[in-house]
């Protein structure tokens, strides 16, 4: 069974639909790219999949034992985060917040997991540095490590390379591709059609109020 199945989704705000009749499925191991112009509803789809807003119609069914809190998220940076005083380690640990349940503090297991994911993203050496002093690419890796602390199953990436220089972009794409090969299912919202064609195995195009799925390779 698919990890996520969307049937006849209608998305939008305040009963005004931006996209309608959207049906698609995401299988384990997929690298799905969602492309479309600004305002076409990509981010709305993202927020709906994350449960941050309700669909106006249709349904989203989670399968394969995927729980709603097991969808990791790499958001676009906000203004707050750019001058936030926090170390890399503190931020990555905050990805474990769903794992601690009712306990107030992070235990040894969470700290080990944070350390592991920092190493996976090649950020161990910078773990005590302040987040706001890092380069854009390093910041994205920190947020990826945080998302991996929340889940190893499915990551939603919202324009992960926005604002990065070409070198950092290539590095981040390579890192993301490696995660996919290691078994993490990915849904990436992007402007970058070339990257979508190169890395994704399926592409969902959204525009003019509807969506169409293309299989690139299987």
């Amino acid at each position, binding site marked *: 069974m698919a990890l996520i199945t969307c049937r006849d989704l209608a998305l939008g705000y305040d009963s005004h639909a931006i996209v309608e009749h959207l049906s698609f499925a995401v299988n384990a191991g997929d690298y799905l790219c969602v492309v479309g112009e600004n305002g076409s509803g990509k981010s709305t789809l993202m927020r709906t999949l994350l449960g941050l807003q309700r669909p106006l119609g249709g349904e989203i069914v989670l399968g394969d034992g995927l729980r709603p809190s097991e969808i990791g998220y790499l*958001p676009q940076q*906000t203004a707050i985060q750019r001058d936030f005083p926090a170390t890399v380690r503190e931020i990555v640990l*905050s990805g474990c917040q769903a794992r601690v349940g009712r306990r*107030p503090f992070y235990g040894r297991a969470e700290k080990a997991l944070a350390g592991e994911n920092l190493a996976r993203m090649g950020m161990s050496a910078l773990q*005590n540095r302040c987040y706001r*002093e890092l380069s854009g690419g390093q910041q994205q890796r920190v947020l990826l490590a945080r998302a991996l602390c929340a889940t190893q199953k499915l990551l939603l990436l919202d324009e992960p390379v926005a604002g990065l220089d070409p070198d950092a972009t290539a590095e981040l794409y390579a890192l993301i591709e490696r995660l996919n090969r290691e078994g993490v299912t990915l849904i990436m919202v992007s402007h970058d059609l070339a990257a979508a064609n190169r890395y994704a195995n399926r592409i969902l195009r959204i525009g003019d109020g509807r969506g169409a799925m293309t299989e690139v390779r299987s």
Partner: protein
Amino acid sequence: MIATLQQYLQFPFVRYALAVGTLIALCSSLLGVTLVLKRFSFIGDGLSHVAFGAMAIAGVLHITNDMLFVMPVTVLCAVLLLRGGRGAKVKGDAAVAMISVGALAIGYLLLNLFSASSNLSGDVCASLFGSTSILTLTQAEVWLCAGLSVAVVALFIFYYNRIFAVTFDEDFARAVGTAADGYNLLIAVVIAVIIVLAMNLVGSLLISALIIFPALSAMRLFRSFKGVTVCSAALSVACALVGMLISIVGGTPVGSTIVAADIAAFIICAAIERFRH
């Protein structure tokens, strides 16, 4: 000078004032970082005016322990402001501005119409700028202040990691199943409690300074959230103690002396940051 201080410290009410003032300074600094970073500082300011209005009503109604009335009213307004943030016709800062100046005006109006006091402008000045109210607390109020301060500190420590997560990235926290709305509500309620407590120390107009200055100073010096939080608490306590001692010895108003100490600390921290780079 030390002799004068020793003489004053023999009075129990001076010792109470120092203890309660230190506790209030400690808890008011804790949420400062969150408020500054979440761009919530204006809510703190608005709520302090609400507390002034509530205090005026309590005065008119002759409620003896006015904290028991002011506290629930302020907490209720905090909840309403946060809830009203989404979906309301009047948005965010406009709603805060409306409520805060409205409460100020109505409070002053009520005091003028119904107050039995012979020294009205003195009373108003005392609740706006604190003057000496920290020295005139009754035993019951001292215990109430101390209990609430300890509760605020305990809540903050218990929810420290959640508050960090919700401050840094609310959407992410929500996506992984943290009840962000609940924590926002908790933050608003705690702020309301802190404001009512701090009103005794510095008066309603100066409360924001007590909440925001230590956080801003600490953010000049430290780079981790934990470092900033601990430093801001330490700075706040130190400034409050220094301010209160100076005001006892020099006879200056307590609230504005503490805020002046906070400003001095901020200038020093900013200078240290400059010097480092």
